[in-house]
């Protein structure tokens, strides 16, 4: 069944890497530009993220995410370029609109940060199965109940979509128009929502009982079905990442 995630199947080293190391990568990639306060470091982080993503062969899956955020970033350039409080030197004019140097630089910084967040987080979500991520967090002490809630959300939404289709068919079969003007659509809302809510409530109760008969809330220590994904490689990655992070802090403090 279709699941709600951006995960792409693959067998690169990044796919096999454990999720927590990838989370550490995100932390480091986001912290470095702030610690060093350097545009060059921001660009370096983005490039390293892009290289890793290319290496994991999921670069093309990033296109929709990037193109969406580019729209947002464009508006930041327009607004900051025209209205940033420290605007002084005119960069260029476009008809009645004047863009200033300071605002554009500020927008550039924000833009780079956003791209940095997107590349590093994409690295995690495109190469990690959501269930692996949740299992890794539960191993580290996240409550299994919260873990279940997280993974069930990902499963329930596609399930609800397919339930919605069945309900729509059932009501159309009874002569209800579901296509057409806004009024027609609004009238169709309740007949569709009613069964949806009822079925979901009933489903929730059933699911709770089904979990309980399998001792979900047992206080015993739980074991895991899958082997931990951590390997010697993860340790090396983690050490390298931490050294870079500490190095940056020392550089900042001493200079």
């Amino acid at each position, binding site marked *: 069944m279709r699941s709600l995630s951006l995960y792409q199947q693959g067998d690169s080293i990044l796919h096999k890497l454990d999720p927590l190391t990838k989370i550490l990568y995100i932390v480091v990639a986001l912290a470095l530009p702030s610690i060093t306060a350097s545009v060059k470091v921001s660009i370096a982080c983005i490039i390293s993220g892009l290289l890793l993503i290319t290496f994991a062969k999921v670069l093309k899956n990033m296109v929709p995410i990037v193109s969406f955020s580019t729209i947002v970033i464009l508006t930041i350039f327009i607004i900051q370029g025209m209205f940033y409080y420290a605007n002084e030197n005119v960069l260029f004019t476009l008809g009645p609109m004047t863009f200033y140097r300071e605002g554009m630089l500020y927008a550039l910084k924000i833009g780079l940060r956003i791209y940095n967040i997107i590349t590093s987080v994409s690295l995690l979500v495109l190469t990690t199965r959501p269930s692996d991520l949740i299992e890794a967090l539960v191993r580290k002490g996240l409550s299994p109940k919260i873990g279940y809630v997280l993974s069930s959300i990902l499963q329930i939404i596609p399930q609800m979509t397919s339930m919605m289709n069945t309900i729509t068919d*059932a009501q*159309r079969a*009874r002569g209800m128009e579901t296509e057409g003007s806004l009024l027609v659509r609004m009238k169709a809302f309740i007949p569709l929502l009613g069964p949806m809510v009822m079925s979901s409530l009933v489903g929730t109760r059933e699911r709770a009982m089904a979990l309980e008969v399998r001792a979900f809330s047992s206080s015993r220590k739980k074991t895991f079905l899958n082997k931990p994904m951590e390997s010697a490689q993860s340790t090396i990655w983690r050490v390298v990442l931490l050294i870079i992070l500490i190095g940056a802090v020392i550089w900042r403090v001493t200079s």
Partner: protein
Amino acid sequence: MTTIRVSNLHFSYQEDFEVLKEINVEFDHRSTAIIGQNGAGKTTFVKLLKGLLLPTQGDIWIKDYNTKENTVAFLAQHIGLVFQNPNDQIFKSNVLDEVSFGPCNIGFDQKTATEKAKDALQMVGLLDKQNLNPYDLTLSERKLVSIASIVAMDTDILIFDEPTIAQDFVGREKVKQIIKDLIRKGKLVITIIHDMDFVAETFDRAIVFYNGNILLDGDTREVFSHKEELKKAYLEPPHVTQLANRLGIDKVFLNDEELTNYLKNIELKPQA
């Protein structure tokens, strides 16, 4: 009289996998059972008849209306479909409103719709529960509500998708009675069903689906005489026929009465 005509029908959900291939069939007034293994394409087929899905190739005419050229809501005046799970459709807070929703949609005025709804509830035996909330009824009663809500639309063609699910013996007999009443009223009843005894006792015609194709099509008795093809489609003849076959009588019996009458009339052979 032809009421449904299917010509050269192909259908697929995904491009590379055909669920139904090259189906040509006509339905007349005879009540028809559609049988076959899970995944043979039965539910897809009736959804196509109802217009909920459109053929990837070929045409379906309901009376004179091509399903491709008319909306589902329009076709609903002519063809009704009862879904497997009643919870997929129930949304009103009392049974009567739920059942009159369909007739109101296809243009009956409020008064006629209520009358039709009451008649339908009478037919399924739930008239005394018309003011209850459907969700206070048992699942099998709710299934009857969903049947009534289609019956109330008074269409000439009715399709049931596994109507005996979640029914005990009493419920099963009730469903059988409803179908027989509808047949008596001159409706074309088409039913997807896995209960071969039910098929033998209720329907005049049977169509066997196998692998997206029609394997057998004919009078119920004749269909159940094709043992080899039935085996291929993983189907068994009705229990009473199986019993007779084990007794060494190579004939198709559709109900126990037929078998007992047959047994009464043969001369008992003296024990050797």
